[in-house]
């Protein structure tokens, strides 16, 4: 395949530089950031990511418009690959770069959002003591995420997957002296790690049946129904479920952990303990979509197993609804955004779940990727906007806010754009992608469609609840004494992203990204859009009625729905359930007995051996009195005994 395309030497190098430049930033800042280049560390890291982003755009332009297509179909190109670790013939971890529409799209998304966050943080974290450390972690994160999206080998993806996990751990724990941040970063790491266990075992099963770890070969072998690999993977079964389905379900668990889907979502809201730009980068725009990306990457294989896809769809829709309900009740603005992220990821997931492979059936796939793209833009914008608000107010709580539109005009406008986009109001970006998702759901599964419709209405409601609570509501609060909006470095990303959030919907996404590489003609039915838009507007007006002016209507409603409200406010007690399982069951019923067993039984046996030896020797040491005369008696007795034996017994 390499021979068909001539990219010239520069493409290979340029591609390699995209992930390696942020890595360089990590290494340089990690090693020398504390002393040598403390002052310019932010600028240094930002310029590296800027180059990286430029190269990504260049690659995307080249791929989509110049060399990516062969006979009207986007190809999977692997310009760089080398064997990293050979396990057995055919099975090896290869490090490589795989270019196909989704990875190229992700390259653009990741570098773009990362660049925005880099620029934004220049102002947001100015004067922090660990400023260089922050930028080095951002570099590590960007590197890992880029490595993940271009992975040509499933194990390569797992490697970067773990690196993404650890960089998020480091970034969430950036304020290391706050106990809540420490708890949050541990929780994020452990929950995703638990999910990764599923991913790992899934990889093991897939590699065993496919006999390879390479994505292209693996997909080829497991999607062609006549190959021996496919036959053995579907024939082998455990507990009545085929090995293929097991593998995919396990891989999906990994994806669900990283993407914070129900019931592995518990880490995401807590992860808001990190600096706000980090939340924008990791927990909104890039890292959490890794799970979606994983399913999308293996989508051809997923489409061979209907039960696995069903699971994806239902976990997706449950997460979407569940998170939307919780988001309506939270008062910490970052938590609202976190749950809205979870809800949107749920949308992407079920879009994948309802999708088929190839042609018109692949609408869900395209829609999910499209929504991933637009969501990255407006969610990053929302978080960065929330960051600006928090920077101004020094609080995350809605009750401390209100009437901020006068003090933060740019933030206000951009935030409004983002809210309109996420609520699916035309012509903003979210409208188009959400329409496609709903259409895909409508064509496939009525239950999912109706839940999705309700959820999109809820989305509009809670987003505007947030918007009105921050920028309208109480007017009286005076913040005159506070500093301004945060300067050019903070405003530039907001403006750029709001342009994206407003306009990205007009990209003919189906032409570029589809399940089979061929352009997908998206059919646009205006009649179909009536219901979602109406629901969205209803949500917005309800929020306006409740929250635009200070009043007690919302409290009254909350009171009348007290049971449901309380349940949602306490996040349906999932956290408590986890705490119960880990603290009470794992620690008390497994950890403690293991430690006790070791201390008392295993160690006790060893000590008992020692002690019994001591005891016996204590008993017999009297023989060894050290008295010559006693020895002589024994000696004499022995001689006499032997003499008797020889003379009388043995003759």
């Amino acid at each position, binding site marked *: 395949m390499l021979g068909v395309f001539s990219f010239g030497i520069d493409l290979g190098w340029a591609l390699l530089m995209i992930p390696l430049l942020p890595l360089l930033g990590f290494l340089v800042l990690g090693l020398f950031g504390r002393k040598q280049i403390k002052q310019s560390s932010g600028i240094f890291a930002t310029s590296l990511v800027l180059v990286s982003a430029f190269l990504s755009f260049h690659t995307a332009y080249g791929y989509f418009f110049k060399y990516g297509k062969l006979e009207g179909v986007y190809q999977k190109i692997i310009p760089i690959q080398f064997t990293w670790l050979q396990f057995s013939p055919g099975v090896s971890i290869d490090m490589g770069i795989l270019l196909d529409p989704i990875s190229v799209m992700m390259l653009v998304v990741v570098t773009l959002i990362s660049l925005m966050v880099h620029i934004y943080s220049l102002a947001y974290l100015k004067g922090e003591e660990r400023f260089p450390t922050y930028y080095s972690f951002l570099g590590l994160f960007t590197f890992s995420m880029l490595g993940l999206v271009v992975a040509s080998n499933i194990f390569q993806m797992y490697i970067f997957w773990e690196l993404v996990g650890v960089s998020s751990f480091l970034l969430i724990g950036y304020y290391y002296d706050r106990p809540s941040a420490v708890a949050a970063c541990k929780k994020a790491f452990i929950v995703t790690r638990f999910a990764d266990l599923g991913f790992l075992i899934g990889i093991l099963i897939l590699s065993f049946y496919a006999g390879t770890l390479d994505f292209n070969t693996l997909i080829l072998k497991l999607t062609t129904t006549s190959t021996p690999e496919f036959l053995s993977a579907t024939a082998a079964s455990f507990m009545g479920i085929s090995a293929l389905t097991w593998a995919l379900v396990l891989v999906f668990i990994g994806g669900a952990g990283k993407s914070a889907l129900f019931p592995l979502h518990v880490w995401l809201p807590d992860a808001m303990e990190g600096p706000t730009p980090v939340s924008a980068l990791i927990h909104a725009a890039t890292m959490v979509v890794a799970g979606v990306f994983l399913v999308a990457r293996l989508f051809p294989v997923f489409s061979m197993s209907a039960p696995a896809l069903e699971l994806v769809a239902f976990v997706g829709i449950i997460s979407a609804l569940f998170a939307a309900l919780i988001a309506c009740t939270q008062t910490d603005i970052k938590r609202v955004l976190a749950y809205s992220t979870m809800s949107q990821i749920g949308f992407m997931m079920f879009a994948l779940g309802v999708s088929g492979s190839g042609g018109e059936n692949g609408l869900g796939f395209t829609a999910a990727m499209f929504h991933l793209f637009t969501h990255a833009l407006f969610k990053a914008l929302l978080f960065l906007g929330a960051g600006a608000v928090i920077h101004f107010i020094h609080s995350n709580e809605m009750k401390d806010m209100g009437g901020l539109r006068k003090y933060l005009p740019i933030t206000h406008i951009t935030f409004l754009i983002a809210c309109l986009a996420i609520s699916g109001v035309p012509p903003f970006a979210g409208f188009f992608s959400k329409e496609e998702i709903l259409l895909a759901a409508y064509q496939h599964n009525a239950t999912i469609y109706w839940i999705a419709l309700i959820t999109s209405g809820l989305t509009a409601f809670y987003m505007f609840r947030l918007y009105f609570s921050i920028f309208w509501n109480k007017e009286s609060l005076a913040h005159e004494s506070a500093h301004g909006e945060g300067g050019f470095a903070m405003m530039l990303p907001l403006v750029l992203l709001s342009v994206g959030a407003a306009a990205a919907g007009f990209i003919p996404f189906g032409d570029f990204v589809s399940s089979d590489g061929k352009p997908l003609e998206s059919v646009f039915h205006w009649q179909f859009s009536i219901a979602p838009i109406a629901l969205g507007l209803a949500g917005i007006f309800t929020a306006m009625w409740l929250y635009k002016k200070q009043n007690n209507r919302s409290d009254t409603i909350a009171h009348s729905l007290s049971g449901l409200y309380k349940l949602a406010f306490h996040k349906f007690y999932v956290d408590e359930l986890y705490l119960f399982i880990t603290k009470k069951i794992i620690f008390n019923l497994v950890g403690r007995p293991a430690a006790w067993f070791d201390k008392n039984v295993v160690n006790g046996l060893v000590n008992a051996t020692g002690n019994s030896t001591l005891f016996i020797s204590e008993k017999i*040491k009297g023989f*060894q*009195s*050290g*008295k*010559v*005369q006693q020895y*002589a*008696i024994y000696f*004499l007795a022995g001689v006499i005994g032997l003499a008797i034996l020889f003379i009388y017994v043995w003759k």
Partner: protein
Amino acid sequence: MMEPGLYHVLIISTALFFIGVFGFLTRRNLITMLMSIELVLNSVNINFIAFNKYAWPNKLDGLFFSIFVIAIAAAEAAVAIAIIINLYRSHQSIDVENAADLKF
């Protein structure tokens, strides 16, 4: 008057041997214990000489052995008395019960 034979001599040497052993086992004084060992050794000497005389009168092996034993007894006595003197110097006593420092 009966001519003393091998048996008589052996009875004397056996008596001497057990007197020596008894002394060695019961006495606490090192000098006495040394003397007891001398008794044991001399009873062996008597045996050698008696057997030589009565059993193989034409040979001298028994006599030679008894000379060896005497020589060794002398050497042993020299070493033992040296040890005893040293012990006396350090412990002001030559009682074996007191010399229990290396016990256990």
